[in-house]
């Protein structure tokens, strides 16, 4: 029993070491607040660990972790609607010197995607920013792979047109 627990702890440590920055970026690009993003990641990792302990069937652990963080972000917006950072006020959020760069990145991507519908925004983030495959995106979103591809295509075409329009105006 103790050996099994030790093995699970080692597995968790490996996941945290390898994926904590990626998971933090995933959460931060949706939430925009470091503390909350880290809390979401922490809770997600612990829920995965609990799941492993209970010996519930987890096929692909890494895919499960991504899904856990994605669901935790959705729950975060449901639970704390008042703390959601709107794009208008995103630049006003007080951040430390170290976080200024990543917060700028959050604002830049959010401004690029603001004209897209939410489902297309999420697929573009998952494909371009999080570098997931269409198969992974389809599993994560519970949609067919073809739907994920078409949504992505529409989103990019929409962005192209928007950038062209802006270029013409300038």
């Amino acid at each position, binding site marked *: 029993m103790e050996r099994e627990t030790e093995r699970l*702890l080692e597995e968790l440590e490996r996941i945290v*070491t390898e994926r904590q920055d990626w998971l933090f970026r995933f959460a931060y690009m949706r939430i925009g607040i470091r503390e909350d993003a880290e809390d979401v990641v922490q809770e997600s990792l*612990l829920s995965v660990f609990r799941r492993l*302990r209970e010996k519930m069937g987890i096929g692909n652990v890494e895919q499960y972790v991504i899904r856990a963080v994605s669901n935790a972000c959705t729950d975060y917006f449901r639970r704390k609607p008042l703390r959601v950072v709107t794009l208008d006020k995103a630049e006003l959020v007080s951040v430390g010197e170290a976080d200024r760069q990543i917060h700028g990145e959050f604002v830049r991507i959010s401004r690029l995607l603001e004209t897209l519908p939410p489902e297309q925004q999420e697929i*573009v983030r998952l494909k*371009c920013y999080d570098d997931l495959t269409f198969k992974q995106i389809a599993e994560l979103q519970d949609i067919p792979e073809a739907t994920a591809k078409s949504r992505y295509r529409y989103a*990019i075409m929409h962005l192209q047109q928007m950038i062209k329009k802006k270029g013409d105006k300038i």
Partner: protein
Amino acid sequence: MNEFEDIEQLLKPQCEFKASETLKQEVMEKAREEVSPRRTIKLWPWLAAACVIGFIVMLLMPPKSATEEKTLVAEKVEKPKAVEEKQVETIPEPVNVKVETPKRPKVKRPRKVVKEAPAKEPQEEPVQMSEETRMELLLASLDKDVPQMEEKDSYEAIRQIRMRGERLVSMYKAIDN
């Protein structure tokens, strides 16, 4: 097609995201806390023991009515004790008084016998009486006191007798004078 790739490139991350250094530590600490059941195991027996002790105390404690009766009984017992003590205390006092009281007659009686008028009348009579009759009268007066003396301590009785003897002698001397 190039434009498509350009937009994809535009949407790629352009800086590194680093999670806090404490994140990993916190996750691992919380995971270890969840794994180690020590706290729950340590707490439960104490809680259970406290509950059992409380239950036993409730069972063994007498009802309120019983405790009240006991206190009443205790009061009843206490009161007689106090009375006894008082009695015990009062007993020696009369002894002391009685010890003192014989002294008074010792001094006064002879005076009464000698000084008071009724005593003078008999004085005149004893002059007429013989010595034998006087002795008989005195012995008779002593005999009257004997039963009272028998009730007291032997020491006290001896003392009384001695005092009476002295009184007798003094009476004789007074008569002779």
